[in-house]
């Protein structure tokens, strides 16, 4: 099965999904309704995408949107799928997918810490890497690293020689 056929199959089987083939073996899937992401990924998994490679988030500051991104791989058809779910940046909430892939729990914990996205249904969203973090989540685009290091550690830029 080529990525073109697979894209048509995904878009045909799930009404909220929009799938476009790209490069030689990749598909880009956009989820129209983020509340149904777990069901949609379960459907995509049943089509042959058994492996979740990566779960990440992209902060589109100007468009006021977070893209929660799932990178999947099909061992059977050798196709890579990138599933994107755009959520409101002001109130970032999305259901967990840890029932579909158990390792998503750890990825979601990290994304919660780094972007402040709330994964509904994930039992453990405690901090994983940062201890006693009090600022805004650090991987957001509006987090100012220089101001933070000045405030927290009294750091100064080196004088230019």
């Amino acid at each position, binding site marked *: 099965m080529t990525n073109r056929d697979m894209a048509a199959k995904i878009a045909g089987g799930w009404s909220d999904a929009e799938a476009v083939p*790209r*490069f030689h*073996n*990749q598909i880009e899937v956009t989820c129209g309704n983020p509340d149904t992401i777990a069901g949609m990924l379960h459907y995509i998994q049943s089509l042959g995408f*058994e*492996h*979740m*490679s*990566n779960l*990440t988030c*992209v*902060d589109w500051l100007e468009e006021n949107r977070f893209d929660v*991104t799932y*990178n999947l*791989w099909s*061992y059977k058809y*050798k196709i*890579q799928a*990138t599933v994107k779910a755009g959520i409101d940046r002001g109130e970032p909430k999305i259901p967990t997918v840890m029932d579909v*892939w*158990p*390792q998503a*729990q*750890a*990825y979601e914990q990290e994304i919660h810490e*780094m972007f402040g996205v709330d994964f509904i249904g994930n039992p453990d969203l405690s*901090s*994983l*890497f*940062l*201890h*006693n973090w*009090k600022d805004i989540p*650090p*991987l957001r685009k509006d987090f100012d*690293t220089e101001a933070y290091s000045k405030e*927290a550690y009294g750091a100064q830029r080196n004088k230019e020689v």
Partner: protein
Amino acid sequence: MEPVFYELTKLAQNDQYTTYEMFFGPNHPGMHGNFGYVVEAVGATVVKVRVNAGLLHRGFEKLMETKGWFQNLSLIPRICVVDPDPNEVAYCMAAERLCGMEIPEKAKYLRSLTLEMSRLTSLLMGMGALGAMMGLYSSMYRMMTDRDYVLDLFEWLTGARIYHIYNVPGGVRRDIPDGFLAKLTEVLDTLEYNLKEWDNLVFENPVVHKRLTGIGYITAEEAVHYGLVGPNLRATGFLADVRKDDPYAAYPYLDFETPVTHGGDALARAVQVRKEYEMSIKLVRQIIKKMPKSKEIRLKAGNTLKFVVPPGDTYARVESSKGEYGYYVVSDGGLKPYRVSVRGPSLPAGLTLCHKHLPGMDISDVAIWMASYAVCPPDIDR
């Protein structure tokens, strides 16, 4: 900020025993990296485990958003010290795919060469560490000697022993020096000769067999479900290899069969790593034989500080010594990447599978469990 102090916490006590919370790492002989588990144990049996990560977090993903496409190359190999080249290649592949570049044939071979040499160094360290976890320190020190022969060749080829910064978007940085391939063949002969020694010391050692059998057993279905990759997955009998499934660099031109092992426990994983090591030596020999004679190793990228990548996003995967290393790269068309997300191959084992496997295990087996799954802290803390 107030500092955080940890002390040995008493969790429960009765007339027979006391339950404590114990720190397994970061300062522990069985822990290779700045990472740790906090285990609750009754006697010597683990009952619960908590992950203590963040001691190695260097904020690479944030740093990469503040530097140019080419400047990031000096950061990327530092993500994984043991196996740096898959990082470089995955990042370059993502940038090239977005630019629509096709690198010269010789550059593809040189990429495969560095990837396989890097795999050799990493597997030697992994096999040695597994031996060390069982108290077989002689295997570790002697494998480090072999590893150093390969690192010397890396220094000759790239100018650096550990952080090579050799692969750049558009190709590789240097051509092969005169006499390099002959010397490499010599080193490969040494490595192959020493394999017998490793068999006697580790892989055919009855004590090792007894110690490893049954630790961390997993079935193929479960391994796929949990996102295990590379040798861990192939040790369950499931054949999946990025080099075959999603070919990159010179792998489409090479002739190889990826081995699998049936078993799914620590012994099967050790045997699988040994098979992959042997296969890697053969692959390097094949690359030497098929190396093109041309001098073209790099496309012209113009002023590297003004290098831009068209807007878009892609996920590039490379088979590292521990399995699929992936870079999800987003570009907005600017001088810097908009977002880079790194997929470390051992994150699912280190953060999720530990909650399933470690409870019920002896504390003395935890280090072997970690070494057999090749849990590498830099994959978790980027």
